[in-house]
């Protein structure tokens, strides 16, 4: 049975049927039903999508987004070919065959290209998720908890990650930092009250943190993970929360934030410093006048992804942004907070406990345009800069810890006790 739908009203009806289905058993859409969509010409679909975007209820958009993605995946799975495009490919291939020289030149160019930076890989990962932008009609709008659950479970691929049983495996591995973890969780605040030891929440949190410490080679417990764990547990089960963290660490390459010497944190600290200088000269001046470095803020903000101040809403919405726009979201939020603090005149209050709301901060992020291109160029500069400072430090016979310490990490990866070497001479 094949439909040809030309007017947008009927299309809308079919779509709304799909949204219901995605809600009930999303992810397992009936492939048979998709077949009916195969012959839909592209243009009316696009038109209807834009029509749907204008609709005020965002729950419908969630459905569309998933349909769009699933539709795409389904096509991919079945290796569906488009005859028209195929012919184009043949033409291209023929051209390149005629000009083998060009092919060679391409190779040479490729070789001389500079190696990929950390942020390069970040962006590549994000490109594949562009379709998800449909989900948020306006980036600054609120999403309900249910929608967020669906969105995150899709982005972080809960099904796939849960199948591997990694969470349980990680729990069985020994953890030598349990004393610190217990101590930290006992003094972690959730929604204004402490975690009660031996309560279910507390046990879940311990499980989650233990698993998080083992989520990737080189990562071990860092104070601050406890805040992320507790914030995630407000919405998800321990296993789901683990999947979210795993995806942050794997897909968004934040794992170097938690490895020894915090190479990514140092890079981010540097990037933020230059961004502040560019966007908020007053704040930059304030830091200089007080002879303070940004290293007071960065661990607190980036390491915990803004979850430290018991402001779970801010954490969730920052991660939303992170999933949609990529790493630059972290910087935009930082800039936004500093801007608001500066405007309100209490810049020295880095903890912003009750003074700023998540809505305020997130909606202010749109005032700061940070492109991934800029971040990349800054990253290149930073590595050169660090080399310079390292040299000057060596002259003074002082050990400076390397920023892009690829080799350093490889040497130490998997060795839990290596951080003690930093202290004992």
């Amino acid at each position, binding site marked *: 049975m094949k439909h040809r739908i030309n007017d947008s009203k009927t299309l809308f009806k079919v779509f709304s049927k799909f949204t219901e289905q995605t809600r009930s058993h999303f992810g397992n859409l009936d492939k048979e039903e998709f077949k009916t969509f195969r012959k839909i010409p592209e243009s009316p679909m696009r038109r209807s999508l834009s029509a749907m975007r204008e609709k005020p209820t965002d729950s419908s958009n969630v459905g569309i987004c998933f349909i769009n993605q699933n539709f795409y995946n389904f096509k991919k799975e079945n290796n569906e070919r488009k005859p028209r495009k195929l012919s184009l490919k043949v033409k291209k291939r023929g051209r390149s065959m005629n000009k083998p020289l060009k092919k060679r030149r391409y190779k040479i160019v490729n070789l001389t290209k500079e190696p990929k930076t950390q942020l390069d890989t970040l962006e590549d990962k994000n490109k594949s998720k562009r379709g998800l932008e449909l989900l948020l009609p306006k980036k600054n709008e609120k999403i309900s908890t249910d929608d967020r659950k669906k969105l995150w479970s899709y982005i972080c691929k809960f099904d796939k990650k849960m199948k591997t049983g990694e969470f349980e495996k990680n729990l069985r591995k020994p953890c030598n930092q349990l004393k610190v973890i217990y101590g930290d969780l006992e003094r972690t605040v959730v929604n204004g009250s402490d975690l009660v030891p031996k309560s279910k929440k507390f046990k879940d949190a311990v499980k989650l943190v233990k698993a998080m410490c083992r989520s990737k080679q080189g990562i071990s417990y860092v104070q601050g993970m406890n805040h992320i764990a507790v914030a995630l547990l407000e919405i998800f089960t321990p296993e789901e929360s683990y999947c979210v963290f795993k995806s942050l660490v794997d897909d968004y390459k934040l794992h170097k934030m938690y490895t020894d010497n915090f190479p990514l944190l140092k890079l981010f600290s540097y990037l933020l410093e230059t961004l502040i200088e560019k966007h908020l000269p007053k704040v930059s001046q304030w830091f200089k006048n007080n002879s303070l470095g940004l290293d*007071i803020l960065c661990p607190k903000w980036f390491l915990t992804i803004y979850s430290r101040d018991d402001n779970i809403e801010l954490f969730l919405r920052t991660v939303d942004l992170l999933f949609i726009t990529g790493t630059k979201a972290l910087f935009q939020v930082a800039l936004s907070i500093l801007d608001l603090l500066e405007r309100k005149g209490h810049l020295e209050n880095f903890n912003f406990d009750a003074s700023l709301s998540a809505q305020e901060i997130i909606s202010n992020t749109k005032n700061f345009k940070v492109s991934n291109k800029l971040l990349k160029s800054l990253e290149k500069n930073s590595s050169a800069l660090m080399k310079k400072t390292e040299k000057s430090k060596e002259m003074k016979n002082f050990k400076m810890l390397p920023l892009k310490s690829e080799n350093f990490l490889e040497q130490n990866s998997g060795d839990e006790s290596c951080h003690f070497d930093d*202290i004992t001479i």
Partner: protein
Amino acid sequence: MEKKKNKKVFLKVVIIGDSGVGKTSLIHRYTSTRFLQDFKPTIGAEFSNKEVVINGKTVVAQIWDTAGQERYQSLGISFYRGADCCGIVFDRSDHSSFENLDTWKNAFLKHGAPKEEGTFPFLVIGNKSDLDDGSLVKERDAQQWCADNGNLEYIETSAKDNTSVEEAFTKLIEKGMEREKVNLVELPDRMSQKNKTVNLQRDVAKDVNRKPQKKKCC
């Protein structure tokens, strides 16, 4: 010049020690005269200012609270640098935190790189004296350690009961002031270090404003 105008002395006090020994509560007790049962673990570092009058001089003490986890050591460089005195805190009810005093002292000297390694003013603070169940670290042992490590001074406190907290910080600040008298040259040196970093950033800012090169066609 500024110093003469305000008649204020600026001191940087750094508090270090194992995680959960009560560094944050000690500082909080001193700066805001309150005790909160639970503190979030400190991440990176925090600081608070307190103005006190000691020996007729107004002192602005910038008290730095650092993270206790060993892993944060690698970030400690910038927090320790330029410190005038350092308090090493241990938990008297937790013997391992006492055993780590060595590590902390060495780490501070290594990362903070003060000019006089031998005579830098340290104060060893044994916190949580209120938890007396007979198994506390004994004063004798602590004094012995201090004597073995360059005649450091030792004080026992309790942030909960507010015993000798004020005294401990006053001692620290006094020690820092003594050192300040000897090393007045330290300050401009510190300033020049800051300037160095600023210059480097400016270079980068110029690079940012430059138009990015167009991508070559493959």
